[in-house]
C-alpha cells in the first residue's frame, strides 16, 4: 500500500506520459481507501482551474491595457525590427 506522501506524488506523476499501469493501479487502490488523498485529488484540480482563471484574467488585463499603449512607440519598434530584418 502506498503512503499518502507517495500517493500525492503519483497524483502529480499521473499527468505525465511515463505514468505506468502498475502505478495507476496502486494509486487507485490508495484513493479508494484514503479520503484525504481523494480530497487532495480534487483540490489539485481546483488549483489547476485557479491557474486557468488567473491566466484568463491576466489576458483581459492585457487587452484592456492595449488602449493605453503608446501607438507611436509600437510604430518605432516595428520600424526598427524591419530595419534589422533588412540587414539580415
Amino acid at each position, binding site marked *: 500500500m502506498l503512503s499518502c506522501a507517495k500517493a500525492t506524488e503519483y497524483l502529480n506523476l499521473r499527468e505525465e506520459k511515463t505514468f505506468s499501469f502498475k502505478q495507476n493501479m496502486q494509486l487507485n487502490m490508495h484513493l479508494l481507501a484514503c479520503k484525504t488523498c481523494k480530497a487532495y485529488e480534487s483540490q489539485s484540480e481546483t488549483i489547476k482551474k485557479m491557474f486557468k482563471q488567473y491566466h484568463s484574467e491576466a489576458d483581459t488585463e*492585457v487587452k484592456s491595457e492595449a488602449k493605453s499603449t503608446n501607438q507611436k512607440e509600437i510604430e518605432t519598434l516595428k520600424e526598427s525590427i524591419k530595419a534589422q530584418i533588412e540587414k539580415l
Partner: protein
Amino acid sequence: MTKDHEKKEALNTWVDEYSDGLLRWAEYKLGSKNLAEDLVQDCFMAAFQAYDKFEGRSKAKTWLFSILNRKIADYYRSHISDFKNYADPHIAAAENQTAAIFSSDGHWENMNPDPIWEDEKSLLDHPDFREKFHACLDDLPVLWREVIHSKYLQSLSGEEICQALDISTTNYWQITHRAKLLLKSCIETYWK
C-alpha cells in the same frame, strides 16, 4: 529554401500584424517594457533564421508566440541559474515546509480535508481571487514558480520545461508536486 526577399516580405507582414500582441504579452510576463521590446526583436530575428522550419503547419501567430515564450524562458533561465548556483535558501525553506505536510511515516499531518475546498466556486469567485492567488504564487521559490508557471500558464510540456530551465525530469516532478502542495497550504491559509 525560401529566398531571402520572400522571407523578409513575410516577416515584415508579421511585424505589422503581431508586434503589438507579442509586445504586450512579453511586457506582461517580464514586467519591463525595454526588456519586452528586446525580446520581441529577438523573436523576429529567430523567426527569420528558422523560417524554413515553419512550413505553415501552425498559424504564424502561434508560431511567433512559441518562439517568444522560449525567449522569455531563456531569459528566466539565465536569471534562475544565479539562484541555483548558491542554493537558494528559499528553496530549502520551501522543501522543509512541504516535508512538514506529511509525518515521517508518510501520512498527512492533518488527515481532515479543509472544508474550504468543498465550495470550489466560492474559491474561484472570491472578489480578491487575483490578489490572493498572486500572493501564493509569490510565496514560491523563483525556480518553482517558473516551473509551475510554464506548466499551467504556458502549457509547455515537461520536456520543454526541463530543457528551458535546465533541470532533470525527476527534479521537474518534485518541483511541480511540491509547488502544488505549497499552493494548497497557502490557499487554505489565505482564503479564510
